[in-house]
């Protein structure tokens, strides 16, 4: 997958098999995440699908009626399906192109995707479209035609040959066209046969007429269901008559077609191979025996179709059970079976979410999430967090889980490895946007510690400021000061100079900032200000005692200036500080180690200071004495 970046919609293509994320039960398939945004949506989001869909539906809610809502939902469902199909195509091209050895892997991947689309499509017809009797069959026919695609290649083969009607597979083609209710095409085939063998032209024409006149509900047709039923009944009886009269006795193929069109189960079952699966059998059976079947009657036909088709030779597979559950309109069962069969959460999470929007899910009180939808979304989102870049998608999903989304996000977000600063910033942004202050603090602390260990003090300081961690800021400031003592200069001046209000985070940090300010003032030759600041740092006790010697030493150049900078009063203060320091009396709160070392150098320094202070005092007194007043 590609690295996802902040705002714009991004396509995440089907990822290669190495990234084992969500595995499927039915085969060695691997990670599948596919979110292709519908082209007309440019909403901001790194999780195109579910977010965009939600936006869609929310907007509609405020507007009009159920009808519009339903068509929107159907459109959304179709989008999902087109995504799955796009994935299938992508798989096909990527895998087949790359490595023929991957062939088996990719073909099972494609078959899994195909199964997913099959299920989704059926759910769309039954639960979202909620097709009533009449249109129901048309939808189911489309459904079958979409998924049993051998017809097209067969058709190409046969039609492409010199003598189509003499082709080996000619009758297979005609049969399967009939099985799929594609009677116009079947008729065209028959006319070729009629042309090629005049002997059978007559019966071909009769058959063609039968095909032409089969009553079927077409979209836009205004006849009522009752009218259709009546007409169909008549047509059915006409076919029956032809059978009784043995009209097609001379052509076993045509006779067989007639029986199919009469909905004869035995005849249909003879075509098992062409039908290839029980649900095709089901739909064909319905087409030719009960085209106005009501949705609630579907399950009866479904179960018996499955039983008849399998004929006791094999047992139903997971896919079969899922489809059966759908025909029974048992949504919860569908979701349950899918959850078991597919160890991938993407499918159930999104399907359930969509169905939830159709208000089809009764709310089960689950411990995790107030309902099944949230439960599944939580699972899906958690899974995403294990992936290096898909975690951002996971964030968005958690946002849509009202009950446990936030806390789940809090728990997961801290576990994202922060390999790069960029990633860390992304994670922090996510937390800050959601006011997850604890997580911000924790993450900043981790980064600050890492920075300290790598001696990147500036970085450590800015992380601890961001974390609002006073204790840590103190620690880092101490390091800065220690560094200064050792090397005589500051690192990361920019940062310290621009602390602003953050300076207040900790006393030590304040001192650091002010101390640096002192140096700046000195550099700008604002000696009087610098002097006052220096003194106040000691008298206000912001400066740690251990640093006083350094501060006093810093005062030296100011004391040695030609003009008098420290006033007499200030000089007395400085002297007091020096005496405090050298008296070696343990000061309340300070430990032994911070007392003045009895060192030659130290002694010399102290001497120098005393001398300087004394001289300055003298000069200051004289100067102040000779000014008017005092």
């Amino acid at each position, binding site marked *: 997958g590609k690295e996802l970046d902040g705002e714009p919609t991004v396509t995440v293509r089907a990822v290669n098999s*190495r990234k*084992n994320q969500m*595995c499927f*039960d039915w085969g060695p398939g691997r990670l599948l995440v596919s979110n292709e945004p519908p082209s007309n949506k440019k909403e901001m989001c790194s999780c195109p699908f579910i977010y965009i869909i939600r936006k869609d539906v929310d907007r509609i809610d405020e507007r009009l009626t159920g009808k519009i809502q339903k068509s929107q939902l159907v459109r959304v469902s179709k989008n999902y399906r087109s995504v799955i199909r796009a994935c299938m195509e992508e798989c096909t091209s990527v895998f087949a192109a790359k490595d023929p050895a991957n062939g088996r892997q990719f073909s099972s991947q494609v078959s899994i995707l195909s199964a997913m689309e099959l299920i989704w499509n059926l759910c769309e017809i039954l639960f979202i479209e909620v097709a009533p009797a009449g249109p129901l069959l048309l939808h189911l026919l489309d459904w079958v035609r979409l998924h049993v695609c051998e017809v097209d290649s067969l058709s190409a083969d046969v039609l492409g040959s010199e003598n189509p009607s003499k082709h080996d597979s000619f009758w297979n083609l005609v049969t399967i066209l009939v099985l799929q209710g594609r009677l116009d095409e079947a008729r065209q085939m028959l006319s070729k046969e009629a042309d090629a063998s005049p002997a059978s032209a007559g019966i071909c024409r009769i058959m063609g007429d039968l095909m032409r006149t089969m009553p079927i509900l077409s979209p836009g047709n205004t006849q009522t269901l009752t009218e259709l039923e009546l007409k169909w009944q008549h047509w059915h009886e006409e076919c029956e008559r032809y059978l009784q009269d043995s009209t097609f006795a001379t052509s076993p193929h045509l006779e067989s077609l007639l029986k199919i069109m009469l909905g004869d189960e035995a005849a249909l079952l003879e075509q098992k191979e062409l039908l290839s699966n029980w649900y095709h059998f089901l739909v064909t059976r319905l087409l030719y025996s009960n085209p106005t079947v009501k949705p609630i009657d579907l399950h009866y036909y479904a179960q018996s179709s499955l039983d008849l088709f399998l004929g006791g030779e094999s047992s139903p597979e997971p896919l079969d059970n899922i489809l059966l559950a759908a025909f029974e309109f048992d949504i919860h069962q569908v979701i349950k079976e899918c959850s*078991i069969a597919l*160890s991938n959460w993407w499918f159930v999470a999104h399907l359930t979410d969509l169905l939830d929007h159709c208000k089809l899910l009764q709310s*089960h*009180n*689950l*411990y*995790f999430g107030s309902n099944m939808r949230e439960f599944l979304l*939580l699972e899906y989102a*958690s899974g995403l967090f*294990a992936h290096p870049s898909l975690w951002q998608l996971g964030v968005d999903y958690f946002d849509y889980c009202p009950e*446990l989304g*936030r*806390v*789940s996000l809090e*728990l*997961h977000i*801290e*576990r*994202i*490895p*922060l390999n790069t600063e960029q990633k860390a910033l992304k994670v922090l942004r996510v937390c800050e946007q959601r006011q997850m*202050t*604890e997580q911000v603090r*924790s993450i900043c*602390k*981790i980064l600050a*510690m*890492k920075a300290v*260990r790598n001696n990147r003090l500036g970085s450590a300081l800015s992380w601890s400021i961001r974390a*609002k961690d*006073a*204790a840590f800021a*103190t620690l880092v400031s101490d390091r800065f000061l220690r560094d200064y003592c050792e090397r005589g200069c500051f690192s990361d001046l920019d940062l310290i100079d621009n602390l602003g209000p953050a300076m207040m*985070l*900790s006393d030590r940090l304040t001192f650091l900032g002010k101390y640096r300010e002192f140096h700046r003032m000195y550099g700008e030759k604002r000696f009087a200000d610098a002097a006052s600041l220096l003194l106040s740092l000691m008298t206000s006790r912001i400066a740690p005692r251990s640093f006083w010697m350094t501060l006093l030493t810093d005062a030296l150049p100011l004391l040695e200036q030609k003009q008098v900078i420290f006033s007499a009063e200030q000089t007395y203060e400085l002297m007091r500080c020096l005496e405090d320091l050298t008296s070696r009396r343990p000061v309340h709160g300070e430990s032994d180690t911070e007392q003045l070392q009895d060192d030659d150098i130290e002694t010399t320094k102290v001497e120098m200071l005393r001398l300087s202070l004394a001289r300055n005092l003298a000069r200051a007194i004289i100067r102040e004495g000779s000014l008017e007043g005092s």
Partner: protein
Amino acid sequence: MVSVINTVDTSHEDMIHDAQMDYYGTRLATCSSDRSVKIFDVRNGGQILIADLRGHEGPVWQVAWAHPMYGNILASCSYDRKVIIWREENGTWEKSHEHAGHDSSVNSVCWAPHDYGLILACGSSDGAISLLTYTGEGQWEVKKINNAHTIGCNAVSWAPAVVPGSLIDQPSGQKPNYIKRFASGGCDNLIKLWKEEEDGQWKEEQKLEAHSDWVRDVAWAPSIGLPTSTIASCSQDGRVFIWTCDDASSNTWSPKLLHKFNDVVWHVSWSITANILAVSGGDNKVTLWKESVDGQWVCISDVNKGQGSVSASVTEGQQNEQ
């Protein structure tokens, strides 16, 4: 369904007693009867040996990763009565501290929630539980609870950090008043809950009785913001119990039997959001459990240990670092 995503060949020369992923799921620490502790980089399905730590003189029973804010720190405990804290400095792993305050095998180590600081609880066969607190500059302060469990303590597990009262920003530099708690399981068949008093002493707060044999492991579930607290325990008696307490102040814990296995159950471990419990036992299987709608615990998978697949700790990702 659960599937194996990686198999790590540790090259340990003897039984592996524990395997723990670090906080981010990028590293794996394993310890064995061969006395060594090994650390692997397991990113992207790979396995690179980072460190082979020697220092124990007996089988090493458990390892525990500290929170990353303290750096890369790993604790290990062993039959040799010692607890060793290892630290990574400048890319190399070294022994940072050794705690030899127990008279018998140390069976379990568990780091406290990072909010409390760097604190390690250790349970030993001498019946005592010791608590090591890092005070800075390589120093560790030790508090010991003697006779926590008669005969021996087999497991320790910290409760998640929950700040009592509201979570307003504390004045700078001040720590919120956490009530520190942990659970321990012992050879007296009991699970005990411990609480730190204001004077810094640890007091036994509760005894949870339900097992009929040695308690082998306890695991306090991460908090998901609900007012309930949950603890899982497993025992030599083959039973796994889920203990819940509905209200922090009510202090009544009710056990629910998750399952009775046919053999000793050695470990229980929660997923990050506490919705899945991994259980491993002598029957050579690792099973994952989830609570269903009606409050029953359901097994959602079965992973056979022996067949070259890794224990649940890898597939479940980060476990109870608490």
